[in-house]
Structure formats: structure tokens, C-alpha cells
């Protein structure tokens, strides 16, 4: 695999997580003030940088086959979660991720919370809200960037893609000063789920000692196959959902005599 698919996969995955983090930082900044929100953002980024600095080189020391087995298993399990949620959301069996709703809830909670700071933090609630949001979403970014980067022995490209995604989303957020609710988040999550699952399958199988027919070219079959199977499942479940929630036709519900009239 060359650097372009690696960059694009990590970029899209990280952009989705960055959109979710941005919603929380905006809620903290606009209701509790920008200073504690930015302090929380900075502290979370510092913790994430330390985790990346420790885990990245440590993973690179592992033998490639062992690394790919572990990373493949983690990515396949992680990707299955993303695919499952995206398919259930598309088909209506799970509510769509609503950035506007999350923003409204976080804003209301932030406005109701008591003020008060500790040490150099002027407002503890705003700081904690921003810190937790960025750290939790950022851990997923770090996980994806490190696993993809180390398995390809190209952590630099993966880290660059992650930073680029965060910068693009931050600039877009500053420009609109509102949650990025129009981003097709579920479609992006579906695409990322397909990529995580496909690369998990590919690397896990290689790490387990099997070899793919065509080597790396097998990815050109694995990715479309996973996408097609997941897409088919999404379409089938959506039809099933619509059929089960559609109101019964008058002919089915009316008494026999009325239906005949």
C-alpha cells in the first residue's frame, strides 16, 4: 500500500472524530468562555502527544508479523463496531448521531453548572468539558493513526493525516462558529468502518501466517467486498425497517365489507 490510501483513510477517520470533539469544545467555549475551553483543549492535546510519543516508537519495535496480528485483530473488532453502528443508523434501527442535539444538551448543561476555578484553570467545568471531549475523541484518532502507521511502517504519513484532519475541522469550526451538523457523518463512519475492517482482516490474516493471493493487490478485492456486503446489509435492513413501520393499507385494516365498497 502506498502513502495515498494510508493518508486518506486516516484523514477521514480522524476528521469524523474531530467533528465530534469540535462540538464539545464549541459548547464549552461559547458558554463558559474560551480561556478554560482552550486550556482543556491544550491539556488534552498534550496528553495525546505523550501517548503518541510513547506508543508509536514502542509499536515500531515489535516484529512486523506480531504487530500486524495484534493490530489486525484490534482494527477488525474496532471496524466491526463502526460498521454495525453505521448500518443500524442508516436503516433506522438506531438514532443518527445528532451534532446539533449534542451541542444543545452540552450547552444547556454548561450554562446550568456552577462557576469556579482551581489553580491556573479559571473555570473548572469549561476546562473539564473540553478536556474530556478532546481526550476521548482524540484517543480514537491516536489509535487509528498509530495502528495504521505502524503496520505500514509509516507513522509519519499517518500522523500528518491526523493533524491535517484536526486542522481542517478546527478551521471549518472557527469559520462557522457552530457544530458541523451538515457533515455526512454516518456516511463517513460507514466508509471508515469499511476501511478499518478491511485493513484489520488483511493485516490480521498476514500476521497469523497466511499469505494473500496477489499480496497487497488482494486489498483491491477485500475493501470492495467488505463495502458491498455491508452496503447490502444496510439496504436490506432499511427495507425491513420500512416494511415493519409502514402503516397498514386501508384494504388490510378495514372490515371486509368496507374494503369491498
Amino acid at each position, binding site marked *: 500500500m502506498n502513502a495515498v490510501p494510508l493518508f486518506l483513510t486516516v484523514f477521514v477517520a480522524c476528521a469524523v472524530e474531530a467533528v465530534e470533539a469540535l462540538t464539545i469544545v464549541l459548547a464549552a467555549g461559547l458558554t463558559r468562555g474560551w480561556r478554560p475551553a482552550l486550556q482543556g483543549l491544550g491539556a488534552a492535546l498534550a496528553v495525546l502527544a505523550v501517548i503518541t510519543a510513547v506508543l508509536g516508537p514502542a509499536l515500531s519495535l515489535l516484529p512486523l508479523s506480531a504487530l500486524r496480528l495484534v493490530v489486525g485483530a484490534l482494527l*477488525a473488532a474496532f471496524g466491526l*463496531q463502526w*460498521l*454495525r453502528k453505521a448500518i443500524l443508523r442508516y436503516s433506522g434501527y438506531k438514532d443518527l448521531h445528532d451534532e446539533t442535539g449534542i451541542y444543545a444538551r452540552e450547552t444547556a448543561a454548561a450554562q446550568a453548572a456552577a462557576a469556579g476555578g482551581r489553580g491556573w484553570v479559571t473555570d473548572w467545568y469549561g476546562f473539564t468539558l473540553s478536556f474530556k471531549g478532546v481526550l476521548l475523541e482524540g484517543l480514537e484518532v491516536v489509535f487509528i493513526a498509530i495502528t495504521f502507521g505502524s503496520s505500514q511502517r509509516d507513522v509519519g504519513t499517518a500522523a500528518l493525516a491526523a493533524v491535517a484532519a484536526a486542522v481542517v475541522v478546527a478551521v471549518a469550526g472557527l469559520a462557522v462558529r457552530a457544530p458541523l451538523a451538515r457533515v455526512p457523518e454516518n456516511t463517513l463512519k460507514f466508509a471508515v468502518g469499511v476501511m478499518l475492517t478491511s485493513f484489520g482482516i488483511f493485516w*490480521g*490474516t498476514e500476521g*497469523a*501466517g497466511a499469505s494473500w493471493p496477489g499480496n497487497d493487490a488482494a486489498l483491491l478485492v477485500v475493501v470492495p467486498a*467488505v463495502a458491498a456486503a455491508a452496503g447490502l446489509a444496510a439496504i436490506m*435492513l432499511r427495507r425491513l425497517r420500512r416494511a415493519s413501520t409502514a402503516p397498514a393499507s386501508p384494504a388490510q385494516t378495514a372490515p371486509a365489507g368496507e374494503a369491498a365498497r
Partner: protein
Amino acid sequence: MKARLRAIGAFWYDFVIGDDWRGAAVVAAALAVTAILAHGAGVNAWWLTPVAVLAALAWSLRRAVRAQRRNGG
């Protein structure tokens, strides 16, 4: 201390395994069998994990839909 360790464990469980542990279990089992076949029997079972993962996805979706129906959704 125990509560904090439990919280960290719960976070990582939710992070990697999520709502349905069966998917992760199928992935682990498929890779283990692939490794046993490759190193123990000399069989190149590259097809096993993709089939198992897609089957796990179908199984997980079926369980989610059934659970939703049972709850009246």
C-alpha cells in the same frame, strides 16, 4: 484505586469491544484458527478471517434488530 482501575478497564472494553463482544470474539477465534492452520498444518487459510468477520457482522446486526423488535422498536 480499584474503582479507578475498573473504570479504565471499562473504558478500554467499550473502546475496542463495544456493544457486542461476539464480534471481537469471532475475530480473535478466526485469526487463531488461521494461525494454527498456517503454522501447524501448512494450510494457507487466507479466506477464513474475511468470511468469519462478515458472518460476525451479519450475526451482530440480526441480534440488534431482534433486540429492537423485542423492545417494541
